[in-house]
């Protein structure tokens, strides 16, 4: 039977009807929809047993105690560790640590700079040979400098011991709150490290110190806040904050006193005046001098300088006086450059409130003894002022060193007058960076040595500044290094040997063991935290209030610019060492960065005074530098002040940070604090013009 056209159409009709009555169409549609989801880049769950490694974050400045969750031996997530003395929550940097292991800007192998300026990958043997050769030229007479970005680790002892063996004392920490506090405490005659017992306080007044975001062991602080304010119950602690911007601490606190930038010490003295009038006193020998100084800071005077009206000041003074265990914490809004005066004035307030070595007050915590014989101890290291030293090198007052070793530090990005600092460092013939990321400083170095990240190495945290107790926490590797990195401590010990120096420890692990022992810690048994706590305190006798120093240091001239500058630091944008973790890019707010443009904040009155509206493009300038940004209106900024988000404007790292926004450090110029000589950069101002 021949099939004609009509018959064929019938056949097709029958076939179509038949096929619709089979799974062909429906199953195929379903399978295609599943197939479309099978892209290779979709992450897959890993099957396997869970395990947890208790450790402490070396990447986050809060030194948060955490647990790393591993599935089948591979780390997948950083979790809170409520048993850890530095835990009880998670910081946004620690939360991103697992992802950062795979960061595109992570150092994968040692690099050396060639004559044409390009980096080439080299072996560790070559790298160590270059390092030894470079350091040989820096022997004797402070020709070697060490800059460390780790404030709490025993690693500093190895680097400073190497420097000492080379005849140098030019060892520095990156600027932070600890240096200001150490200076203030030393001036007062205090022993050990200042600790703040936030956990047991019933009234915490933070002046400048951004206690819930950047000051001290932030996560421990937040935990104390949470525990002190149980949900649905009467709060056991009140928090008050004084600062120019309604930052995360101000937004969380019960009371926010908006003060002009750089007037923290004035506010503290104004409160001291009111407390003394109400009967507060101190056994300090120079109390009379202090009383006389404080008397000058009448509520009217304080209002004129800080912008806080007399009634609000009096209310806070009354709350402090009424509290059973008040605690005053003074510092810098953005964690650096505040000078000693605010801390000195804050500690004097604590003395007036009877908070010295009292539960819920100030605790003098003993330093741990050195475990590397030739090392510089933490007290001595905190006294060295990196910014002042670089200023001297820049001006030619000090000779530029032959070599500088940077350990997890990014001064090219993070120091005030960042551009000038970069130019100063260019004078140094041989620069080496031990780092996990190819950051701005690494980009300016001749030799870059990758170190394992915090999750990949043994390390330690010894009592971060601000902590109310002695805490010694061990960082334990959750995995072997994913790249060709070596622990910096072991590299330093090996290099020292090749230079003919014996640092007295055979391996970095031995130094850690010795430090743990020095703190009375034993990690022989499996532990849920790998941390040790001690309630040891030093006596606080003969504390002086140092009105003589304060009277000079407080002589802060208002910046001769129409608008004051208030940098705003937030942990989610990372640190100078990490830049913004890709994990956190979604937490950068809409009006902080748009595309590559930075938004700065000012209130409506300031904007109106300057003739600006939201989204206007402006130029911020002062002698230190200039950049353009756009305006965001935010009523949480004090009058005549521009708040600039910190942590942006990287010129290195990856697509998530590089070229996004501007670096506020370029607008900050360091000056010397009268009376203490400490570098300060919290009182800056800018000109603002439409761009």
């Amino acid at each position, binding site marked *: 039977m021949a099939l004609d056209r009509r018959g064929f159409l019938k*056949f097709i009709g029958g076939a179509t009807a038949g096929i619709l*009555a089979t799974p062909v169409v429906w199953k*195929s549609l379903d399978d295609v929809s599943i197939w479309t989801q*099978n892209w290779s880049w979709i992450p897959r769950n890993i099957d396997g047993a869970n395990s947890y490694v208790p450790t402490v974050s070396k990447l986050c400045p809060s030194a948060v105690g955490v647990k790393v969750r591993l599935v089948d031996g591979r780390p997948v997530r950083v979790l809170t560790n409520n048993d850890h003395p530095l835990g009880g929550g998670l910081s946004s940097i620690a939360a991103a640590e697992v992802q950062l292991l795979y960061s595109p800007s992570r150092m994968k192998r040692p690099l050396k700079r060639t004559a044409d300026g390009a980096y080439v990958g080299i072996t560790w043997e070559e790298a160590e040979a270059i390092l030894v050769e470079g350091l040989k030229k820096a022997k004797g007479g402070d020709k070697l400098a060490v800059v460390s970005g780790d404030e709490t680790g025993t690693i500093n002892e190895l680097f400073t011991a190497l420097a000492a063996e080379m005849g140098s004392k030019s060892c520095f920490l990156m600027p932070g709150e600890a240096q200001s506090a150490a200076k203030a405490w030393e001036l007062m005659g205090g022993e050990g490290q200042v600790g703040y017992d936030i956990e047991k306080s019933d009234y915490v007044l933070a002046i400048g110190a951004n206690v819930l975001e950047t000051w001290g062991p932030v996560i421990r602080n937040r935990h104390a806040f949470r525990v002190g304010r149980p949900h649905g119950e009467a709060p056991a602690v009140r928090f008050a904050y004084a600062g120019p911007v309604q930052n995360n601490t101000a937004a969380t606190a019960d009371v926010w006193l908006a003060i002009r930038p750089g007037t923290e010490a004035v506010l503290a003295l104004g409160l001291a005046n009111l407390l003394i009038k109400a009967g507060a006193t101190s056994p300090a020998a120079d109390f009379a001098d202090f009383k006389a100084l404080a008397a000058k800071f009448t509520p009217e005077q304080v209002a004129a300088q800080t912008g806080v009206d007399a009634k609000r000041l009096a209310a806070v003074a009354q709350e402090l006086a009424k509290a059973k265990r008040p605690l005053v914490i003074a510092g810098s809004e953005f964690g650096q450059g505040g000078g000693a005066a605010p801390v000195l004035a804050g500690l004097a307030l604590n003395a007036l409130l009877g908070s010295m070595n009292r539960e819920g007050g100030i605790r003098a915590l003993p330093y741990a003894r050195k475990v590397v014989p030739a090392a510089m101890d933490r007290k001595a290291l905190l006294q060295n002022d990196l910014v002042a030293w670089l200023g001297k090198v820049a001006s030619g007052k000090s000779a530029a060193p032959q070599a500088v070793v940077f350990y997890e530090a990014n001064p090219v990005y993070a120091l005030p007058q960042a551009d000038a600092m970069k130019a100063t460092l260019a004078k140094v013939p041989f620069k080496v960076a031990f780092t996990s990321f190819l950051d701005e400083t690494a980009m300016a170095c001749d030799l870059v040595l990758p170190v394992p990240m915090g999750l990949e190495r043994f390390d330690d945290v010894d009592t971060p500044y601000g902590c109310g107790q002695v805490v010694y926490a061990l960082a334990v590797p959750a995995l072997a290094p994913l790249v060709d990195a070596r622990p910096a401590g072991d590299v330093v010990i090996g290099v020292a040997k090749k230079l003919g120096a014996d640092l007295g420890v055979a391996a970095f692990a031995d130094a850690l063991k010795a430090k743990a022992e020095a703190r009375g810690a034993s990690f022989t048994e499996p532990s849920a935290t790998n941390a040790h706590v001690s309630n040891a305190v030093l006596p606080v006798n003969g504390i002086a209030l140092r009105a003589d120093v304060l009277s000079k240091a407080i002589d802060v001239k208002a910046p001769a610019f129409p608008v004051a500058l208030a940098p705003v630091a937030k942990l989610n944008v990372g640190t100078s060492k990490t830049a913004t973790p890709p994990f956190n890019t979604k937490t950068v707010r809409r009006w902080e960065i748009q595309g590559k443009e930075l938004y700065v904040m000012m209130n409506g009155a300031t904007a109106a005074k300057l003739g600006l509206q939201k989204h206007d493009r402006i130029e911020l300038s002062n002698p230190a530098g200039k950049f353009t940004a756009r305006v965001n209106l935010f009523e949480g900024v004090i009058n005549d002040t521009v708040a600039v988000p910190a942590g942006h404007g990287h010129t290195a790292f990856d697509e998530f940070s590089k070229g996004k926004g501007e670096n506020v450090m370029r607008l900050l110029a360091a000056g010397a604090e009268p009376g203490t000589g400490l570098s300060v950069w919290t009182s800056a101002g800018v000109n603002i013009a439409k761009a």
Partner: protein
Amino acid sequence: MEDRQLNSSGCATDGGKCCGGGITPFLVGLVVSLIFGWWVFPDMLYSKKEQPIRFSHKVHMESAGMECKQCHVLREDGTFAGLPSTASCADCHSDVMGSDPEEARFVNEYVKTGKEVKWLVYQIQPDNVFFSHAAHSLDGCNQCHDFKESELCAQCHPDVANSDSAPTHFENKLTGYSKQTMKMWQCERCHANENHYGVTNSSNACFVCHK
């Protein structure tokens, strides 16, 4: 003039037969499609694979008196370990125990070399489905049912308790998933069963399974 005449239905007649073969081509098309759709197509869609080792659940359950959970364990934290590792099989099979050549092959090729067997899994769900074995426990279901352990497992998995060899693994050539992978309607036999509400924690809300 046109020779052909049209009938009342408009169809040209040719000696009493309907043009184009009447209904026959339609039926032929229908039957061909049905045969293709129900017999040929499924065969084309799936590739057949056998397990790397012929494994008898029956021997383990009947002769050794074992239960499902002895090998398919829930870990302490409630996660499901799934298939046992070579090391856990080696708890018993550190050496050849019986006369089955497959056991000898397993011991020689895997236990002695420490290699993991690449077992083919019949019911891997895509990552957009969150499934917890711990939540589907005997304790929970037997509040009302009276399942034996193997019966409960067989509500979703192929019932292998009585089989001497593992079923053939049919892999979908398009999706890569096994033919036995459960579809949502199969989950809903229990999840959408109103009799379960209020008695178990079962719910048919999207977020219960799709996180």
